[in-house]
């Protein structure tokens, strides 16, 4: 963990606690977003946390960044913080300097590149309708590149995900790539993991809040003359949620450390798979505990459960990683126990 982590997290959590009300999150449903919170994050240089100190940043690492993404999920903050900082972090990995203009990314499907012209369709791109630049992957013959493009050149069809967050289909027809840097298959794999780690981190945050809201509700709500947390069936929900929440907090902590140390092997994939189950279990139990009140728009719970439902089917899903992991299992000569306990071997990635 970088030294700045705790301090930064404290500052940011305070900002979110103060500024992100239920109504702030509701903004998305009216096609607005929390521009004031975004401005505060910029004013506090939080978009520069992982920019190196020589480039004027705070010199943090991926662990710091992912911890911030957990907070974005924990407060359901409707700002393009993850998109912008992760896009810039990806660029940083290939020695391209980040942008101050709002940038997003989409690396799920490579675009086609020919003579510096980009073609293809990127689906469900986060916050593209507000961003100016996009970081993507493009393919020319057998070579893959990280590219940067201008979004005003692209055709865009705006929509939202299940949580009303902006998602766009972005179509490139022979558009110019502003920059391009070749990347190896291994680097691309690494980028997929970073994106997935970001996703798992924000899900962990949302999951924590869904759990905490349920604990809170179970203390306040009375039925048949006593607080509902006194009923065994509610206790079962709380116990199960506590388990999922703790497991995922530990898992996310683990992958953050491993990524920062450059020692990650399959752990991001494991965490993503496990998160699929955890998010379902927590969303289901949280709603069951809240009963009818929890399915109203008036209550905050859905801001977190809808995010869990939306995020689990975006970018590199559990289904994607399951196939990757199965391929690895098939190819390794070690048995399962050796694979799990041996942290040295570099796994073969399909």
């Amino acid at each position, binding site marked *: 963990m970088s030294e700045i982590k705790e301090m930064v997290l404290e500052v940011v959590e305070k900002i979110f606690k103060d500024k992100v009300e239920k109504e702030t999150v509701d903004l998305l*449903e009216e096609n607005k977003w929390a521009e004031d919170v975004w401005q505060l994050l910029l004013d506090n240089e939080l978009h520069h946390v992982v920019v190196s100190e020589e480039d004027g940043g705070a010199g943090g690492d991926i662990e710091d960044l992912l911890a911030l993404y957990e907070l974005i999920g924990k407060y359901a903050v409707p700002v393009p913080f993850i998109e912008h900082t992760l896009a810039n972090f990806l660029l940083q990995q290939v020695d391209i300097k980040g942008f101050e203009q709002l940038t997003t990314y989409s690396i799920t499907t490579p675009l086609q590149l020919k003579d510096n012209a980009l073609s293809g369709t990127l*689906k*469900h791109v986060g916050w593209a309708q507000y961003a100016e630049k996009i970081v993507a992957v493009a393919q020319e013959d057998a070579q893959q590149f990280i590219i940067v493009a201008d979004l005003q050149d692209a055709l865009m069809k705006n*929509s*939202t*995900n*299940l949580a009303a967050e902006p998602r766009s289909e972005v179509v490139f027809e022979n558009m110019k790539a502003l920059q391009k840097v070749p990347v190896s298959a291994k680097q691309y794999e690494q980028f997929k993991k970073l994106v997935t780690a970001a996703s798992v981190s924000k899900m962990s945050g949302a999951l924590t809040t869904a759990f905490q809201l349920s604990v809170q509700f179970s203390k306040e*709500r009375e*039925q*048949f003359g006593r607080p509902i947390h006194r*009923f065994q*069936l*509610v206790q079962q929900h709380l116990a199960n949620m506590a388990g999922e929440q703790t497991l995922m907090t530990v898992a996310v902590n683990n992958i953050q450390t491993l990524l920062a140390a450059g020692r990650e092997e399959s752990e991001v994939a494991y965490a993503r798979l496990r998160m*699929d189950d955890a998010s*379902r279990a927590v*969303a*289901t139990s949280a*709603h*069951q505990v809240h*009963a*009818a009140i*929890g*399915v*109203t*728009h*008036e209550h905050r*719970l*859905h801001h977190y*459960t*809808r995010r869990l*439902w*939306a995020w689990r*089917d*975006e970018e590199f*899903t*559990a*289904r994607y990683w399951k196939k990757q992991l199965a391929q690895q299992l098939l190819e390794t000569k070690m048995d399962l126990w050796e694979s799990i306990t041996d942290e040295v071997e570099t796994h073969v990635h399909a």
Partner: protein
Amino acid sequence: MNLPNIQFTEEQKQFRQEVRSFLKQHIEKGTFETRCDSWLSGSDPSFSKLVAEQGWIGMTWPKQYGGSERSTIDRYILTEEFLAFGAPVAAHWFADRQTGPLLLRFGTDYQKEFFLPKIVKGECFFAIGLSEPNSGSDLASVATRAEKVEGGWIVNGAKTWSSNAHDAHYMVTLIRTEPLGEKKHEGLSQFIIDLKGEGVTIAPIRYLTGEPHFNDVYLDNVFVPDEMVVGTLGNGWKQGLAELAFERSGPERILSTFPLLNEVIEQLKIKRDLVGLEEATKLVAELWSLRNLSIGVAKVLEEGGEVAIPAALVKSIGTKFEQKIPEIIRLMLDVYPNLHSDNRVERYLAESILHAPGFTIRGGTSEVLYGILAKGVIAQ
């Protein structure tokens, strides 16, 4: 526990085809679009009018009130087809499923003559006023009260979670007509309240999708004439219980997300994805067994038998099944849930995911049902 084993007759199969071609025709004409959970969230009074024209509202009721005196099994088939095609039948749903049978059993001649023909014509919709802001699963903790006045009652209080009250004309409302005594289930009565009347305020509660769905209904010195009391004063709780078997055992506790399952299997067939189809067969087998159970309960209900426990079983297992469908299906293929997609699987998946939390809450939470079921089992 055992239940009768129903095989449909040729006439019943033919009726199913009749309903099916009506629905397919209207989907083609664009009258409605298939949606998951449309029986409760798809209120469309003009579609209800079309259903009424077919004689399909109150179809089991006596002819003297405009019904067709058809069997419960025919109604079961009709309902199944509505669900399988995701038709927007929410507007007339409660009047057809609950209010009609309630009035036929407990209503006065005046009430039957006044309401039933209107319901059958698709001109009169009902809502249910049961829950209150602080009651939750403790439904008997009713605070809405009525005071006797000349020729009727003055009602004050509030009801909540009243589905479609914003489209309904009347609400069957559970009200405390005697002071709260030792037993909170006693002293309750059922009143029919005119939702367009004076003192009634309907405040929509938005569902988590942002759509209007249920409502708070505030009752402020609302006058209810004596002739709008249903059945016996003070007997409201027991009368309400009688409705529960109808409410809990129907195909709407199994099929809310069926359009998704149906569509996904079509997609898997096109892709010739045997692994996916194998996974899907488990859901089909589960559907088959639940359907046997639910149809068996319908048969016993028709014969006037006691089905509180098996009806609660249908609700308890069936709603978990319909809740599970989207969760299993999303792992079977690469699909992005999207309410506004042109792709049917994406759209049905989004509808199913967002509506699923309600399945195991509405009409009796799973937790409450476990208690009822266990008590039933222990008493045997």
